[in-house]
């Protein structure tokens, strides 16, 4: 195969290259900063994200192009998701800053690893080749393992990191095994070629289906859907809250991209098979996630189970197999990442040095301590429960509409039933905030920029619920 390198390929991946270079620069610069001037590192990261956003915006939203002999796909879908990831990452870094400083964890490596994780996710978002998808996942995973264990003296964090690492390795192995089966039957790694060849092969071939099952294990693990979800609660609880914030928000966007790239772009020929599998996974996730969340006393753990149920909901949109379904799932993903960002952000805001807000009881009487942020948390909880007019309601509605459109009314009913069950534990948080006496009366800390962005975050969730058309239209547009 003759290969011609075209320099324009480098322009296509300019945002990735920029992030990589800046991560390396920050790594060096950070060496020369003492702890008091660590904020420079944080600032540099924000500049990096801004630069990447500008690059993506300027280069993006054109026609779909491929680069690096079909390994890289550059389309509007990816551009939107990348910009969303920059925004969420910027917020994550900002929310984490004070929390880390209070715990003597404000190290340059936190931000650098965060940027590398972001790079891995960007690679996943615009991957058009099984190998590249796998490498993107691994880059993200490796950064996450290190981030979870970041607080080295914390035993639970170390335990969580260990579990995450081993289970993640198993999932990666499964994923790779599945990919090898697909490669074995089609003889190619490229998504478009696999898609074309699988259609020729017909549906009675068991090998690609088995390959799909193994790939599904990998996807299921990365998204955290039942029964590949066991790591989620332990890691959410064990990791420092700032890392939980990272894991709970940005990788969900990448996970959605992974599903789209692997199932929709690469394996459309097996749509009947993965649809069936996704139904099983979605129902199990919504059931286990919502039911077990009720029994939790730790709010980080509760939110972990809530994540599981939300990922189940997200799969509903994907499994519909229609453009409307995909766009509603995309909307759901973006809204969910904002909700996760906001709710963990408030937990970070409530934490002080020497105290981590992570039990449900810590939420008691938040309204007395800060009515405004109790209101923000209220928006988040209502939105997660799917109460109008929050964005979460519209996200759920559109996903359900997509499921009903393909005739799976029973599935929609099941989803609604489990949402009702789920509403219980979200409302419990609200009850604790508004109707219980606070355990301690100290007002909430947090620097002005964090409070401002967090407020913006909450209002955005509310605003997107009232005016969903813009984002929904964008999702539809980039997917059709």
């Amino acid at each position, binding site marked *: 195969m003759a290969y011609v390198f075209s320099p324009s390929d480098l322009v296509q991946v300019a945002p990735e290259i920029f992030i990589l270079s800046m991560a390396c620069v920050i790594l060096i610069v950070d060496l020369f900063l003492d702890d008091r001037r660590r904020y420079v590192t944080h600032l540099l990261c924000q500049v990096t994200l801004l630069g990447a956003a500008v690059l993506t915006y300027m280069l993006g939203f054109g026609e779909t192009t491929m680069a690096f002999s079909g390994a890289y796909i550059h389309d509007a879908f990816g551009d939107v998701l990348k910009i969303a990831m920059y925004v969420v990452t910027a917020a994550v870094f900002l929310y984490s800053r004070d929390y880390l400083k209070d715990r003597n964890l404000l190290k340059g490596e936190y931000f650098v690893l965060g940027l590398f994780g972001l790079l891995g996710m960007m690679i996943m978002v615009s991957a058009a080749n099984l190998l590249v998808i796998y490498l993107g996942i691994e880059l993200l995973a490796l950064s996450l393992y290190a981030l979870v264990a970041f607080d080295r003296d914390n035993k639970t964090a170390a335990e969580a990191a260990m579990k995450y690492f081993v289970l993640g390795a198993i999932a990666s192995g499964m994923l790779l095994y599945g990919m090898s089966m697909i490669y074995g039957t089609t003889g190619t790694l490229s998504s478009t070629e696999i898609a074309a060849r699988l259609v020729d092969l017909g549906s009675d071939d068991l090998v690609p289906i088995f390959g799909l099952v193994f790939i599904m294990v990998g996807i299921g693990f990365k998204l955290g859907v039942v*029964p590949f979800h066991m790591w989620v*609660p332990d890691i959410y609880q064990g990791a420092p809250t700032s890392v939980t914030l990272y894991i709970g928000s940005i990788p969900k966007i990448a996970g959605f991209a992974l599903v789209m790239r692997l199932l929709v772009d690469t394996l459309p020929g097996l749509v009947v098979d993965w649809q069936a599998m996704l139904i099983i996974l979605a129902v199990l996730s919504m059931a286990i996630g919502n*039911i077990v*969340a009720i*029994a939790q006393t730790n709010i980080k753990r509760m939110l972990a189970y809530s994540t599981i149920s939300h990922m189940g909901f997200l799969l509903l949109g994907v499994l519909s197999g229609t453009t409307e379904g995909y766009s509603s799932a995309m909307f759901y993903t973006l809204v969910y990442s904002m909700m996760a960002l906001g709710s963990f952000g408030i937990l970070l805001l409530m934490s002080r040095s020497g105290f981590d807000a992570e039990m449900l009881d810590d939420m008691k009487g938040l309204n007395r301590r800060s009515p405004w942020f109790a209101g923000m948390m209220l928006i988040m909880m209502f939105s997660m429960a799917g109460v109008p007019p929050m964005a979460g309601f519209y996200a759920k509605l559109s996903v359900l509409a997509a499921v009903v459109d393909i005739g799976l009314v029973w599935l929609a009913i099941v989803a609604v039933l489990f949402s009702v069950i789920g509403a219980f534990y979200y409302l419990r948080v609200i009850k604790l905030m508004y109707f219980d006496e606070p355990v301690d009366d100290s007002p909430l800390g947090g620097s002005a920029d964090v409070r401002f962005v967090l407020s913006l975050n909450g209002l955005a969730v509310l605003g997107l619920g009232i*005016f969903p058309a813009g984002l929904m239209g964008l999702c539809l547009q980039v997917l059709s």
Partner: protein
Amino acid sequence: MESVYLALVLAPLVGAIAAGLFGKLIGRTGSHWVTILGVGASFALSLVVFKHIVLDGAEVYNATVYTWMVSEGIRFEVGFLVDSLTALMICVVTFVSLMVHIYTIGYMHEDPGYQRFFSYIALFTFAMLMLVMSNNFLQLFFGWEAVGLVSYLLIGFWYERDTAIFANMKAFLVNRIGDFGFLLGIGLILANFGSLDYHEVFAQAPTMVTESIEILPGSAWSLMTVICILLFIGAMGKSAQVPLHVWLPDSMEGPTPISALIHAATMVTAGIFMVARMSPLFETSETALSVVLVIGALTSFLMGLVGIVQNDIKRVVAYSTLSQLGYMTVALGASAYAAGIFHLMTHAFFKALLFLAAGSVIIGMHHDQDIRNMGGLKKYMPITYWTSLIGTLALIGFPGFSGFFSKDAIIEATHASSIPGSSFAYVLVLAGVFVTALYSFRMFFLVFHGKERMDDHTREHLHESSGVVVWPLILLAIPSLGIGYLTIGDVLFGDYFDGVIHVAANHDVLGHLAGDWHGATAMITHGIMAPPFWLAMGGLATAAYLYLMRPELPGKIKDRLQIFVTILENKYGFDDFNQKYIAGGCRGIGNLLWKVGDEKLIDGLMVNGSARTVGWVSSIVRQVQTGMMYHYAFAMILGLLGLLTWFVIR
């Protein structure tokens, strides 16, 4: 112009939010300034719009501002339809609202809920503007419900009073009945027309005339008739038509400024506005028009009669509002939509004036509202006296005053109408003129003339109200006096509503009357000869005789006609019937469902039962999360195995 429309609607909302959420921050003065500026800006922009649309004759604006969502091809949108009807309505709404805002500074100035009050009335203005500027049914319904909500909040503004809570609950529930009909009507439209946009629906209306609908199996109803009657039920609730009128007199529990703004000038006319807006629909069903006509006529006459026996100054005005709303409804039923809207406009001015004047009296009387304790206020409150006189003369339709033109037009239109029930309605509205004059001047004489019946303490403190109270009175007195004379030619007999209000050729009573139209002055001279004038004079004379010259007579008459008075004082028993049978019955059923259905079956068995089950399952499943890594890995393998097996045996 789109930005003008947006700013017009949003300015009061901004004021409401500022006063409502940041009221403590900006203080009392800040609150009234921010809302007055918002509504003032709105009024100024309304004038700009009026000039643009009506005077400059610009194109009708009909566009979507924001698409909320699209579902199954049905678009849910926020959009504006700005034509001459809208322009008229927004001018009236914002003008009266502005006056009431200013007046409130004086009226509420000692009230602890000052900021809250300003926030509410600014919010009301926003909701009302959304309602009248809408170009689709969804937004109409939004505005409809929003004004209802603010009305509820304001009636119960003094929430420590049990009567206020009772009244706002009553208003809410009665309106719910109307809104239910309204919603059903909108639903039928959506189901049959497949659109919520006015113009799309109106365009299809003529093709739907022959459609029928089966409500009960085996009985075919005309679809348009059903839709129109359902919509009109909504209007009956909001515009307080018999038998859904019962909430309006009780709504007087709210502060007087909102009685003027919401329960006299604007909100209660929403039903009238809505029917006029829907004229292309109503014109397709003569049955519906007939229903409208008869209901309106009954309201106008019966409610006027009740006004005669009321002793609370605000309630008298409230019953007169009911009666006047009946007149407007009669105009709609007679297909004289323009006359209805015209009366709506003149009524908005003089009724707001009367209410605010009543408020001024109430301030003077230290919040004593019983007219039996008043009398001779003329010399203490001259401005209030003269403006009240203008309002009262306008109300009874004294030739030359604005009410004369609109009311006479309605009576004439009813006379000329051929819709079934029009002759019945004609008799009632004619008799209503006499009644109107009687109760209006009864109150006027009792309040301002005759013996001073108040206690000494009150008398010592009697004086004219402050500037912020009397200036709105003066500003409202001007249109009450002259607006009818100035505009009747254009609005009723000109081309003002061309293309906006649709009247079928065989219903066009105003077109018929236009043949005899020789200008407003001629109408006055002609009016002096006509029976309504003499009836009004008769009412005035009766009132003067009974309450000025022979004040002992009313008591004797009352004894003689005890049975009628009792009926009137019981308001025909609507309230008793509602409370005893409807409310009581509902509570009985509710109690039954609550005790047996809800507590035992749903709560006990289903809710708590399922909650317990879920909790139990939750605690079991939780055990699976052991924290052991190999258990987790094993679960993954089991999942893999399960999926594989499923595909193998499938």
